[in-house]
């Protein structure tokens, strides 16, 4: 009856193989490995006479145990169909074994049945093994397929994760690019606005100069003829005095001549006024005349601050202001048209002094008029000098901020300003010197002009 021992070894080996394949219960795997050795020893021992019976019993018990284990452990479910093939054979072999222990007469009676059953059990076993083998094969291919699918799925997932990282990176890049582009667009818009403004100012300047040019000749005639008329009226008066006329006629005629003379005075006065405006307008057309020369800008600024201050003091003895001048010693000589820049500086400084004076005269208590002037050398790859003039006057209302550089725009009362000063300063600084003139202001608090000139 060594057959049961061989079967037991086969079953144990197969169970172990099954477990190895499905990578389950490593402890049991180890145990089974050892038990193969044990069963092999038992197999040898079946040939040792005295303990043969006991060994057989042990093997039977182990077979039943193996059936139990296979049907009890969920992990061994795939093996059950093979086990199924062995069961009749195992039962039969145990029965056979039991029959050997029965009395002789019983044994003979049972033997024929057992032999028949043995044949059946073997056929059963072979058939079942074939079926199980087929099933297992199918199962294995199925499992393999599933594993492959699983692998593919995993691979796809990995790819997906990789792609997601890439997409995130690209998105980040695109967002960054978008922000950069937005910034660039804003920059372009600002530049465009500046260009439009500069273009507008330039064409306004040209227009102003053009108009002035056209008005100049007729206005000259008006002034010249009115001057001749003044002279003629004077002569006429002298001649009338010499004439033999009645006192009443003489008085009447002389008063008429006086009226004419006075009217001519008025015509001439207003003509001259118009002439000074026209001259201011013509300044707009003076482009690039004269050579730029290196000028000590600090000295110039200092000089013009004093000039402007004393100019206003001469008109208004009560006027007083704190003047705070900071000059950057790094500034040496700057190439410029001294007369033109002087004019621009004076315009801006006069406006500053005018603004603080106005605020002071409006009677604000504890107001101390202050003008801050400073120069600064800035190196941004290209060197620039900044001249900043800041006053703590009434500031410029937002509504007119865009207009202050336009010709004829003025907030001063009639006769006090032509509205040409800042527009001319703007032309001198931007067109004449390739610089910039900017204004910052808060109504009621301050106004600041920044002149930027290339060195």
């Amino acid at each position, binding site marked *: 009856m060594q057959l049961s021992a061989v079967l037991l070894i086969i079953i144990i080996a197969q169970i172990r193989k099954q477990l190895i394949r499905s990578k389950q219960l490593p402890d049991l795997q180890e145990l089974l490995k050892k038990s193969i050795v044990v069963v092999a020893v038992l197999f040898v021992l079946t040939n040792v006479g005295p303990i043969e019976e006991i060994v057989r019993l042990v093997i039977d018990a182990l077979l039943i145990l193996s059936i139990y284990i296979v049907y009890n452990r969920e992990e061994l479910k795939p093996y059950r169909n093979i086990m199924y093939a062995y069961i009749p054979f195992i039962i039969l072999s145990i029965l056979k074994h039991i029959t050997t222990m029965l009395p002789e007469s019983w044994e003979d009676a049972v033997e024929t049945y057992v032999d028949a059953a043995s044949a059946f059990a073997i056929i059963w076993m072979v058939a079942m093994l074939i079926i199980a083998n087929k099933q297992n094969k199918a199962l294995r291919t199925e499992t393999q397929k599933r594993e492959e699918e699983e692998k593919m799925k995993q691979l796809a997932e990995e790819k997906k994760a990789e792609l997601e990282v890439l997409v995130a990176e690209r998105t980040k890049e695109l967002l960054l690019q978008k922000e950069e582009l937005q910034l660039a667009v804003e920059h372009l818009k600002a530049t465009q606005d500046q260009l439009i403004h500069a273009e507008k100012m330039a064409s306004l300047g040209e227009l102003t100069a053009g108009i002035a040019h056209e008005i100049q000749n007729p206005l000259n*005639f008006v002034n010249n003829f009115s*001057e001749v008329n003044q002279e003629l009226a004077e002569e006429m008066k002298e001649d009338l005095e010499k004439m033999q006329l009645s006192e009443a006629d003489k008085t009447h005629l002389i008063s008429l001549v006086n009226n004419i003379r006075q009217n001519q005075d008025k015509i001439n006065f207003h003509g001259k006024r118009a002439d000074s405006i026209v001259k201011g307008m013509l300044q707009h057309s003076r482009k690039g005349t004269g050579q730029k020369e290196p000028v000590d800008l600090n000295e110039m600024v200092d000089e013009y601050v004093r000039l402007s201050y004393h100019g206003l003091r001469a008109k208004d003895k009560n006027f007083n202001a704190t003047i705070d001048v900071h000059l950057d010693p790094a500034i040496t000589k700057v190439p410029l048209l001294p007369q033109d820049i002087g004019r621009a500086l004076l315009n801006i400084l006069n406006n500053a002094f005018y603004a603080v004076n106005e605020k002071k005269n409006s009677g604000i208590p504890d107001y101390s008029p202050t003008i801050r002037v400073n120069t600064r050398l800035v190196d941004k790859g290209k060197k620039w000098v900044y001249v900043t003039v800041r006053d703590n006057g009434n500031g410029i209302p937002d509504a007119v901020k865009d207009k202050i550089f336009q010709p004829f725009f003025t907030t001063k009362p009639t006769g006090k300003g032509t509205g040409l000063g800042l527009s001319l300063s703007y032309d001198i600084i931007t067109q004449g010197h390739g610089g910039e003139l900017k204004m910052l202001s808060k109504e009621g608090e301050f106004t600041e002009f920044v002149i930027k000139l290339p060195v």
Partner: protein
Amino acid sequence: MKILVVDDERDIQMLFEQRFRRELRQGAVELAFAFSGEEALTYLSNHHHEAVLILSDINMPGMSGLELLHHIKERYENPPPVVMMITAYGDAENFNKAMELGADDFLTKPLDFNILKEKLKLN
């Protein structure tokens, strides 16, 4: 002294005649007028060496004051008449060109007759 005044504005004649009325009455000055550069050249060729002083505007339709100046300085060498150019206020470009072409003196618009008379030593 004979003065030829060249200007495209016709009213200049009335103005000069009134401004120089005393000098004209006294015979100290004689005035002639031309209303274009071409007219001025015709006058000069018809009245050879009569005009001592030529007062010319620069901006004129047709021949400009500068061209006229060029012609005069080229054609009349011995003795060349004195040419005073009248330039517009702040017109440095024309001033420099006239200077190069040999203008003898300059007056700026608006004409100040007192200055002109001073230059002519009539005061």
